């Protein structure tokens, strides 16, 4: 297609060269060499995004770090006068978190960790199961795909409200199990309610990502395995899982980091300041809403560090790769 139109005598040098380059590139699929002109253009195109992210993410993070070393204005305990600026308190907010306010912090920390581990584990298992079913289903794919997008599209706030209604003391959940559980009161059942609602909302999403990974595995691999006498389970462990692992790991990483900042669902489903389900995000937001910016900033910084460490662990230990290394085609 590239070489049909012009008769050979009309080819001037640079045109022919770039055309040959293009053809070679199209053939080999290798990225072209960097040129200085592209670098300048790239800087021009990328810098607005980086600038905006620096303003809305980087700068607030630095401010949060600074704020976490300051207290709240009020009566100065030393002089008895009212201060109108935030006093510098050094590490007091942090020592407070691990000391006086320690119970609430550690409770929120363990809630966050527990909810993250359980929801992500359940979502992964359920998501993979859903993907396997969808992959096998030949008819009705459009219906399945449409219905699987519904939980994803429903706002988390609405999800919280919906499940609070389902988990109402006279609601359908209790009718179905024939028990009278006060799901939305303090206790382990509150955690269970949050986990069930969260798994409902996000397992289909993981299923979708895993399904995309399944669809790129060629049928021949399975046929070859079957010829060699591999059973269904063996095929799953030795072929399916290793081959969807990259897609699955990215999905699990995204979900884990998303679960660590969980806020909407416990906030609406159970309520604010509930010990059973208070997460680090809820704790930080609660402090900020009550104008205790110093401690709020300290909680925010701790959550940030926690999320960062988990992300680092994923990338280092499991080799999760966020950005595809080579240009590859995505199946339609």
């Amino acid at each position: 297609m590239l070489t049909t139109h012009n008769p050979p005598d009309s080819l001037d040098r640079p045109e022919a060269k770039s055309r040959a380059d293009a053809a070679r590139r199209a053939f080999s699929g290798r990225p072209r060499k960097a040129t200085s002109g592209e670098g300048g253009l790239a800087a021009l195109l990328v810098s607005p995004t980086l600038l905006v992210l620096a303003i809305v993410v980087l700068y607030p993070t630095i401010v949060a770090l600074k704020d976490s070393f300051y207290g709240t204005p009020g009566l100065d305990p030393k002089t008895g006068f009212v201060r109108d600026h935030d006093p510098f308190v050094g590490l007091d907010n942090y020592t407070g978190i691990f000391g006086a306010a320690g119970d609430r912090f550690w409770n929120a920390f363990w809630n966050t960790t527990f909810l993250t581990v359980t929801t992500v584990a359940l979502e992964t298992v359920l998501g993979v199961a859903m993907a396997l079913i969808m992959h096998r289903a030949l008819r009705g794919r459009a219906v399945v795909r449409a219905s699987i997008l519904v939980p994803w599209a429903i706002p988390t706030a609405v999800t919280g409200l919906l499940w609070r209604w389902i988990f109402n003391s006279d609601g359908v959940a209790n009718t179905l199990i024939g028990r009278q559980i006060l799901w939305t009161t303090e206790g382990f059942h509150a955690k269970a309610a949050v986990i069930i609602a969260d798994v409902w909302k996000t397992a289909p999403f993981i299923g979708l990502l895993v399904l995309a990974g399944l669809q790129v595995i060629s049928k021949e691999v399975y046929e070859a395995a079957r010829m060699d006498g591999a059973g269904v389970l063996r095929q799953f462990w030795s072929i399916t899982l290793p081959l969807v692992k990259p897609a699955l790991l990215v999905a699990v990483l995204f979900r884990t980091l998303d679960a660590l900042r969980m806020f909407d669902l416990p906030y609406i489903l159970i309520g604010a300041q509930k010990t059973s389900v208070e997460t680090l995000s809820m704790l930080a937001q609660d402090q900020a809403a009550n104008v205790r910016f110093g401690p709020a900033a300290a909680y925010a910084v701790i959550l940030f560090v926690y999320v960062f460490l988990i992300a680092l662990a994923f990338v280092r230990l499991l080799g999760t790769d966020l950005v595809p290394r080579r240009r590859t085609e995505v199946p339609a």
Partner: protein
Amino acid sequence: MTSTTVHPAVRRALLWLGVAAVVAYCLAPFYWMLVSSLRRTSDIFDNSLFPSRISFENYRAVLDPSQEFGRALLNSLVVAGITTVCALLLATFTAYAMARLEFRCKRFVLTLIIATSMFPVVSIVVPLLKMFVGFGWINTYQAMIVPSMSFTLPLAVWNLTAFFRQMPDELEHAAMIDGCTRGQAFRKVIIPLAAPGIFTTAIITFIAAWNEFLIALSMTNKPDIQTAPVAISKFAGATRFETPFGSQMAAGVLVTVPLVVVVLLFQRRIVAGLTAGAAK
């Protein structure tokens, strides 16, 4: 030869059962919201599969001007709409550079941008809340739009980069050989061809912005500026003891139905967009 001894018909039946289970799992709670919203207040606790008598009283209650719910929907539309337009505008250029140009530290920059989207939102809400109090920005649209860029912009860049990568290089080169500058090739060839991808990214970004709760909750304290998710979370009955479940479900349906309709119309594209980055 299959390795299992299960009869094909049995296997087909099991598969159908599995598919039905997946569909039921995804849709049952949504169906319950819909059914509950159509019940009368007097039989809201019926727990029957169909309402004994369909009633729209919950919808009338929600849309009553005193609830200001229409206003909340409008606020959501403004905030999510402006956020989407701003994010798409910046992301299109950046994603083009990521997919089409070679420059130093490209992988690092792209990883950095994507990593921002996983940032805990509360970590920026806390300092921004304090700053916006100082600016007098509390209860304004910009106080919700600006922080929303922190997660919509990386999402849009990620999605669009995947879309631009799928387009063959030759198109652009052909245009440039025919005398277009890179800018013209971008405007006249790439953008029109990438339109479906940009549109899909817009939908995904809009849904993310529409569903945002923490920022909208923290930056507002007046009912007339609240977005729909915040408004429904605060839906309370006339008394503290009587939660208006019917109205809450009706409000939930009203907030969700536009999204579900869009999702059903463009399901194929949305799935392609959501999985573009994952399926390498």
